[in-house]
């Protein structure tokens, strides 16, 4: 048998969120896959991952919500408020659903540093909500670095006792780190779940289709690195390695995929990658800028 030589960039090229979504939606229309319920729970973080999700393009938000998933609960978008809103959360627990968590889970003082709702006079902490939904969900997606690894919310000295979703749930969690998480990484993973089930994950639970290669592997400035030409300060066009670039250890497809309508990414903004999708971000990635 011929041995396959795997190019680390191929998965990125074959896995646009658009292709995956189209495939999933076609299956839904043919009745071969189901438009599954989903809940997007914002917890201990900046809610930047939902904002990034709103930045999705091809497929955009309205397409995802009308065609791909039935998002029943999300604090930023939902029409309802108060008890009625939280009742939707409770009702969804009894269905088959995907849980997306945006933010870490604060655990200090029994989780009281982050209350997400009041139900029948009782405070519902982020910790309780993540546990309630996390135990019942068909899949759990940790969206962003805080949910995946603790992230900025757990930065030393971690005043809120923030933990990753995986650390508070005794089950498999698909990690989609990135600060924020790229909308394609979320939509692509959702589409994969709908059309093909669980994507292939690495040892940390990250889908290999998006997190298979390091930024350095596919960096648009790799040519400078290979020739040993380095930027001496931010704002220059050469390799950012000597300014503290974390591209060599950070696994995402930012250089090829790019951001916000696929127009740019941090290194092309003449700044170093700060390793925002890595497990030890931010503490293990400092200083972000080395002078």
């Amino acid at each position, binding site marked *: 048998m011929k041995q396959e030589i795997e190019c680390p960039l191929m998965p990125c090229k074959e896995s646009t969120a658009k292709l995956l979504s189209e495939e999933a939606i076609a299956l839904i229309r043919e009745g071969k896959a189901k438009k599954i319920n989903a809940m997007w729970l914002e917890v201990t973080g900046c809610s930047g991952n939902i904002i990034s999700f709103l930045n999705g393009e091809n497929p955009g938000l309205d397409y995802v919500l009308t065609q791909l998933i039935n998002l*029943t609960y999300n604090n930023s978008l939902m*029409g309802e408020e108060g008890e009625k809103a939280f009742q939707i959360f409770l009702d969804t627990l009894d269905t088959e659903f995907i849980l997306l968590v945006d933010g870490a889970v604060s655990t200090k003082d029994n989780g009281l540093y982050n209350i997400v709702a009041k139900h029948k006079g009782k405070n519902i902490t982020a910790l309780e909500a993540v546990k309630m939904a996390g135990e019942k969900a068909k899949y759990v997606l940790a969206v962003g670095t805080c949910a995946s690894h603790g992230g900025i919310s757990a930065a030393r000295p971690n005043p809120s006792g923030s933990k990753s979703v995986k650390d508070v749930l005794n089950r498999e969690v698909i990690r989609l780190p990135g600060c924020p998480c790229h909308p394609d990484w979320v939509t692509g993973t959702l589409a994969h779940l709908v059309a093909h089930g669980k994507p292939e994950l690495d040892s940390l639970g990250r889908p290999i289709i998006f997190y298979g290669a390091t930024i350095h592997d596919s960096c648009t400035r790799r040519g400078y690195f290979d020739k040993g030409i380095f930027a001496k300060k931010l704002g220059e066009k050469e390799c950012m390695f000597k300014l503290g670039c974390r591209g060599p250890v950070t696994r995402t497809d930012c250089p090829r995929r790019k951001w916000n309508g696929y127009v740019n990414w941090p290194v092309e903004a003449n700044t170093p990658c700060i390793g925002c999708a890595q497990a030890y971000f931010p503490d293990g990635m400092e200083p972000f800028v080395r002078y």
Partner: protein
Amino acid sequence: MSKVITIDPITRMSGFLEITAKVEGNLVIDASTSGLLFRGFEKMLRGRSPLDAIYFTERICGICSTAHGMASTLALEDALKVFPNENDKYIRDILHGFEFLQNHIRHFYLYVIPSYVKLPDIHPISPQDSKDFRLPNHLNERISKNYIKAIEYSRLAHEGLAVLGGKAPHNHGIFVGGVTVNIDAYKLEKVKSIISKIKEFSNVMLEDAYIIAKYYPDYFKKGITYPYFMSYGVFNNYHEKELIYANPGVSIDGKTYELDSNKITENIHYAWYISDKNVKRPGEDIEYQVDISKKKAYTFIKAPRYEGLPMQVGPLARLIINGEYKGGNGTMDRIIARAIETKRIAEIMEILCQKVEIKNNNQEIYSMPDKAYGVGLIDTTRGALGHWVSIENKVIRNYDIITPTMWNLSPKDEKGLYGTTEKALVGTEVKNTEDPIELGRIARAFDPCVSCATHVIVEGREPIEIRVL
């Protein structure tokens, strides 16, 4: 007989907010707003490299990260005595402008509109259980369609931001000394094209705001709060008059004064923090600890005050201080002010683009002083944002942040004065206490962001010399 209404979560905002209102008959006689998230950024920042504060503090908030990048950069430039040139300031303000456009469009359509307009049956936008939708069909349909368009235009605003800053949220392009982008003709044209599209949509948004106002005129009278407004100014540090949008200032009881930042204090009387001192000045190095069992406390948000007064910050404050709004101080005034501002900022961004020259950035290698102190005050999407940084042994010694939402969503202070939103809620007539839609409408008009407001706390600090501004 009185009744207590609690709404938690107040959805369609950034972060976690609870409103509690005591109602007698149909009248709100007491109200409190509680921010229910605590992370402790100021504590985390201690000991870190000062230059890292820019990208670090952006992560306080996902919807207004550029605001923190700006304030942090200004504070560091103040501390390091760095003065960016005009061209880089233009570009930086265009970056910041895109954040305004993104934020205001999302706030108006995605957060505010679902309380007033029956939208298409798409989860989780539906269900919308309100019984108070008043628009005639054709107008309801118009704004429903614009809701979907707003998703695209707000996305586009972040695309403009990314052209100049790498990505959004949490851009890399705003930095000490100006910006990191080397602007070229293509990037500039791309940015101009995006601004022109959004400017056109801002006219639609303004019309939609007036449509809402026409059918909900009672909301000019609902949500009236103190006549105290404050702004640190934004798009104002220019010689050219046509570039100036909002100068800093304070308006109290109809009179306008110069801003004096030394008059700012913050107190923790009703917040879940304990300290030797209940009131401090920003930048002053004082130890706080979290205590969620503290009696009478009900929020993680501290209470900033200006000359002891709870101020309102944001688009309405900017317009009133600068004499550009002659209306009132109610919920609908706040909604209209935000729409007016969106159009104004798109216009200013167009002029900024005309001024931008195709030149490289002016980044330098910045060496860190052993000791320095800097303040960055700027108005951002939601209002006045301040960062206070002190540097010692080349690392961050102390970092204070007072966000716009801390002003708008503060709790009561030691004198018992309600916070700005609380004051807006008290006196409201709630038509149906089983469906108190008025309260959420009033609170959302302030565009609260609890992610931003409850980052604070400095605990377990060894005592050092106290610095008073």
